[in-house]
């Protein structure tokens, strides 16, 4: 079954003066998928997002949300969109509830029940009647998510949503986003400059650099393309130095009392290394492989230079 594109971006460009900030971006986002928008700082992620939500004027190109042109019919296009642009800045002198009420009044048909439901979903029910100035950053993120979800949008746009969250918070957000994408068939656009985060959160990733879209791929495809893995063995060796032959090509040397072996290899080679080490009497307590996608990403985008 063909998935329906909820957002169609066609030749989207932004020029400020003579400078082209965003250069003819074209891509679609489908229902039920989490789309990662990846690029180094200054590549144009935030500018693109600001154009998608109507904060910045589109110089050239078209954006259709649920089939409605954002340029021609802003109100009807944007009503399907919920979002957080950069940090979720709220009215600090109001309570969390008053903040939500404020945004609820700006869309027709949001009931008190819906507000309470969203508060339950993001888990703020205990503190919702406290002033926002007493909230931690994590709680503000939750409130930010709540205001974005209020009107049950078809597209959720989150700009650097994990900024300032602790690892537990990031994990929770990730699980929640995957859940609503799957269960409620919402399309989610997430931007980030951290690839490791994207890998775990997204179905597809688009890489942007210098305002141009370099590559759009499924995360799996990205993973398949990967070359070497960095593999981390946690071991206990006995007192003698050992030279272990793995295959025709490689040998490793293990020093007395060595605790860790870190090697780069292809995925297929991991069992060979493991077997040979075990046969040589090395006790293995753990094996962990890290993808070198991060390196590949840096290769593609040419590092973190600001263009």
């Amino acid at each position, binding site marked *: 079954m063909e998935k329906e594109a909820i957002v169609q971006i066609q030749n989207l460009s932004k020029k400020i003066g003579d400078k082209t900030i965003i250069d003819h971006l074209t891509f679609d986002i489908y229902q039920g998928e989490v789309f990662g928008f990846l690029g180094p700082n200054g590549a144009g992620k935030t500018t693109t997002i600001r154009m998608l939500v109507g904060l910045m004027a589109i110089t050239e190109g078209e954006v259709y949300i649920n089939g409605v042109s954002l340029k021609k019919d802003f109100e009807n296009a944007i009503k399907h969109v919920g979002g957080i642009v950069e940090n979720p800045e709220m*009215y600090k*002198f109001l309570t969390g509830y008053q903040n939500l009420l404020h945004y609820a009044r*700006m869309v027709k048909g949001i009931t008190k029940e819906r507000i309470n439901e969203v508060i339950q979903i993001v888990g703020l029910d205990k503190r919702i009647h406290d002033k926002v100035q007493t909230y931690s950053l994590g709680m503000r993120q939750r409130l930010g998510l709540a*205001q974005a979800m209020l009107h049950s949008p078809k597209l959720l746009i989150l700009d650097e949503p994990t900024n300032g969250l602790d690892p537990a918070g990031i994990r929770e957000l990730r699980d929640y986003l995957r859940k609503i994408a799957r269960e409620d068939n919402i399309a989610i656009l997430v931007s980030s400059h951290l690839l490791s985060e994207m890998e775990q959160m997204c179905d597809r990733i688009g890489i942007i650099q210098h305002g141009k879209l370099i590559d759009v791929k499924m995360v799996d495809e990205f993973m398949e393309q990967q070359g070497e893995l960095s593999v981390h063995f946690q071991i206990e060796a006995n007192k003698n130095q050992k030279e272990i032959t793995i295959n025709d090509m490689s040998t490793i040397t293990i020093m007395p009392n060595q605790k860790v072996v870190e090697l780069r290899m292809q995925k297929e080679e991991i069992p060979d290394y493991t077997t040979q080490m075990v046969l040589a009497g090395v006790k293995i307590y753990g094996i962990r492989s890290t993808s070198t996608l991060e390196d590949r990403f840096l290769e593609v985008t040419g590092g973190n230079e600001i263009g």
Partner: protein
Amino acid sequence: MVSIIALIQNENMKIYRRIGTIVMIGLLLLAVIATGIIQKYVIKENATDWRTAIQAETTNFKTNLEKNPNLPTALQRHYEKQIQINEYRLEHNVQPIENSTIPGFMNTTANLVSIITLFTVIVAAGSVASEFYWGTIKLLLIRPVTRSKILLAKYLSTIIFALLLLSILFLSSLLVGGILFGLENADVPYLAYVDGHVEEVSLVTHILTLYGYSGIELIMMATFAFMISAVFRSSSLAIGLTIFLLFTGVQVVQLLSKYSWAKFILFANTNLAVYQDGVPIVEGMTLSFSIGMLILYYLLFVSLAWGIFNKRDITA
């Protein structure tokens, strides 16, 4: 379509849930009470008969006019007006309004409208600029509501704030005046000087007219501050510039009043009371001219505010 009422409710929530606003309302009430106490207990009115005082004043003005034929025209006309009013008082036995009566008190507190102008300018200046300062503008403008409508709600809530303060001023003056000075003398008429002759006006009409005239200046200055705030996104600039103009504007026009083009300056036209009860700053100005100028300035402010706010890229 989201109703404008809901948007105004939002803006009201953002105005009245802040400490600053409550402090402003408190200060206004305090000013009314302080004025009342000063008028009742501090200022002593001279106990001489009002007829004698008025006669002395009239004689004084007349000799001044005869001795100095080169007095500025504005001052000459002021003297002539005062002489006519004084003569009317003696002829019809109409006592001047004393400060220690409720009409006199309400007449004095009508001057506090300038404080309301100041407070409204502060609210108007913060209305748009604060959203940028807080960063909340980003979440505000990604709703299915046009920017024009959001700006309109902000503008209307500012005007509602001004109207609320004006009602508070009127009612608290009535209450404080009633308690301190009693309700007698409430029916003494006010003498207005219209087209070269004296007319009796009821006091309520007179005070509401005073509020109305000050209200025009209030609206113009609030709209100006609102425009600066929407265009430059800075509330301090909007407050500073507006208050600077408020304090210096009339003086500058007075300095330039010998040039006929001075009548095109906003501040030559903001005080419409001169057409009812005095002389215009520049000779040859008429009420309809001033109203026309005010409408032109108003349209200029409004189109700048809306034009630029609607087009602006939000990069905050």
